[in-house]
């Protein structure tokens, strides 16, 4: 996807976002106390943002960002470029969803192990090394936070510590 098109989409998205938030300022509760209402500052910010978004859109439509085009390949090219980042985000999301069940120790170790394998390769020898690093690194970190800094990390349902 060309950079210019992406910028047009981004500008339109930001404009819509600004409008939604501006509309939401009318739902902010008015108080009988306080000289300045709670909606004044957000509105001022949103007006400024709206003006800037219109400028951004105008620049994008005029092809001002054409020189910044870096890669082509359409949706497939874009997906291939950001596959790693998207998978990492997804894995992190799964880690957070499963956190109440697996707990921080098991969840973080599994997350790191799977991330290592995804980014580094699934060969058996590598997986053994990845497993060892994940267990040692997360175990040490968990111990430092739990016993050193006295932070009660989520323990989950499997491994009850407290």
């Amino acid at each position, binding site marked *: 996807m060309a950079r210019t098109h*992406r*910028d047009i989409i*981004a500008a339109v998205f*930001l404009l819509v976002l600004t409008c939604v*938030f501006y509309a*939401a*300022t009318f739902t*902010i*509760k008015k*108080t009988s106390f*306080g*000289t*300045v*209402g*709670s*909606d*004044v*500052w*957000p509105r*001022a*910010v*949103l007006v*400024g*943002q709206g003006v*800037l*978004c219109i*400028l*951004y859109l105008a620049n994008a439509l005029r092809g001002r*960002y054409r020189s910044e085009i870096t890669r082509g390949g359409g949706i497939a090219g874009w997906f291939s470029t*950001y596959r*790693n*980042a998207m998978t*990492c*985000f997804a894995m*992190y999301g799964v*880690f*957070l969803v499963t*956190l*109440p069940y697996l707990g*921080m120790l098991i969840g*973080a170790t599994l*997350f*790191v192990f799977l*991330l*290592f394998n995804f*980014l*580094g390769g699934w060969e058996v020898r590598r997986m053994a090394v990845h497993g060892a*690093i*994940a267990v040692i*690194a*997360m175990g040490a*970190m968990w111990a430092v*936070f739990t016993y*050193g*800094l*006295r*932070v*009660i*990390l*989520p323990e989950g349902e499997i491994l009850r510590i407290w």
Partner: protein
Amino acid sequence: MVIENIIAAADALFTVPTMALMVLGVAAGLIAGAIPGFTITMAIVLTLPFTFGMTPIQGLATMLGVYVGGFSGGLMAGILTGIPGTPSSVATTFDGFPLARQGRPGLALGIGVWASFFGGVISAVLLMTMAPQLARIGLEFGPWDFFSLVLFALTITASLSGDNLVKGLIAGTLGLLVATVGSDEINGVERFSFGFEPIEQGFAFLPVLVGLFAFSQLLSDVQDRQAARRPLMPPGAEAVRIEHAQAIREVLSRWGNLIRSSLIGVFTGILPAAGGSISNILAYDQAKKASKTPELFGSGCIDGIIAPESANNATAGGALITMMALGIPGDIVTAIMLGALLIHDVVPSPTFINDQPTLAYGIFLAFFLANFIMVAMQAVCLRAFVLVTKVRMYILTGVILAYCGIGIFALNNIIFDMWTLLIFGVIGLIMKTLGFPLAPMILGVVLGHIAELNLNRALSISDDLTLFLTRPWSLFFLILGAFSIFFAQYQKLRGKVRWTLIYPSAMAICLAVPLFMMQGAVRPTIAGVVTMFSVWLLWRHKRRGWKLVDEVRE
């Protein structure tokens, strides 16, 4: 009084645990700064969770250790492999790497280390002397002035942090918008939560910051799978013996360059947003212009190592001056340090140094001391750096991603903070991909509350908006803000288009107006001198027929 404060601060600082933590902090900073792609900010972010259980002085001393170490760590990679460890040591590679390739890596490293040390010490002295003075000026500020100062900080950040000003300003307003989500600080009214309970109190500041900066940075580092599987640096880095004695002689014999570059570093640091990545290039450029042998620059010239290294370490002191005296963070690193202070219930403001002298002078002393520790630790960390370079990028990314999550959870013991980290990590990566600079957004998040609070106070005192223009300091910052919008363009086009001939003089004359409005004799006198000098500059350009640089050469 000052001596008493220093003694009290030294008493709090010079304890075995605090010293040990500082040594660890400096070592961590040196190694982190040496790894390309692993910035000082990320090192500070990772240190932050460990400081929760510490006293404020211990926590800040540790983070200052990382800060100073990080600035100096970049030179190891830059000199030994030609790849700068951090953006603040880019110019070090111009002469450091050639000198190392000429068979003098020990001397090149020594010059870098000692230039960093002296730059840091000079800026520490200026920090101790200037911060209380600036804080005294800050006491004159009313809410109108603070509000205008925040606007200036945002405009200059947007101007300096990217090629596209509009995108930079949008990033800044997005940051301000994020700061408005949740309960309003003044009236306690809920805003923009859309019925979603976890954000009724707003987003916690540090998860947003870490997500935007560290999380998105880590994931952009592993986008290329092949690159992610390679070691952090190509082979070439070897531990060498640093030639300390000769390096000290070489650095001190070029004291003019050292002092000039350090001053450039300090004043660049004082400016919001202009950090070490700018000061090292500026100092290198000035050293080259001032040199009798500019043709030697780029071929292993010693002055070319001294200038960037002394400037980047001095920048840290400059950034701390603004944060300590006014409570306005100068860059992302000081924004995180501000967050660390807030965690310990310490709110930097113009009264901070007077109200909490032990802590304030403890920070001054810790910054001073960190430079000494940095020199002592450099040789040890050089070996560790060589080992760390063998680690593969994806290993580091995986461990740090998990660590960020644990550290952020430890902040408030709330799982939603980890979701905030993820959400803002995604936003950060998308923004980076679209060419939006992240620094204005981060500063927007940090400064949003300060701006709103001061606007509210100003409008509560008087609904007269002209006060923003009639109060001298407010007008001063608004003029600076207006001119700062064009600052990046000015730097790029300096001497190539006609308006750049007028720009500095016009800015100085405009800034003289609020100075004339101030009370006393000193500031109006300064304004008079500045105006006369600017008029003389304009007259000189007029006499030369408004000739550009190329036309003058012809």
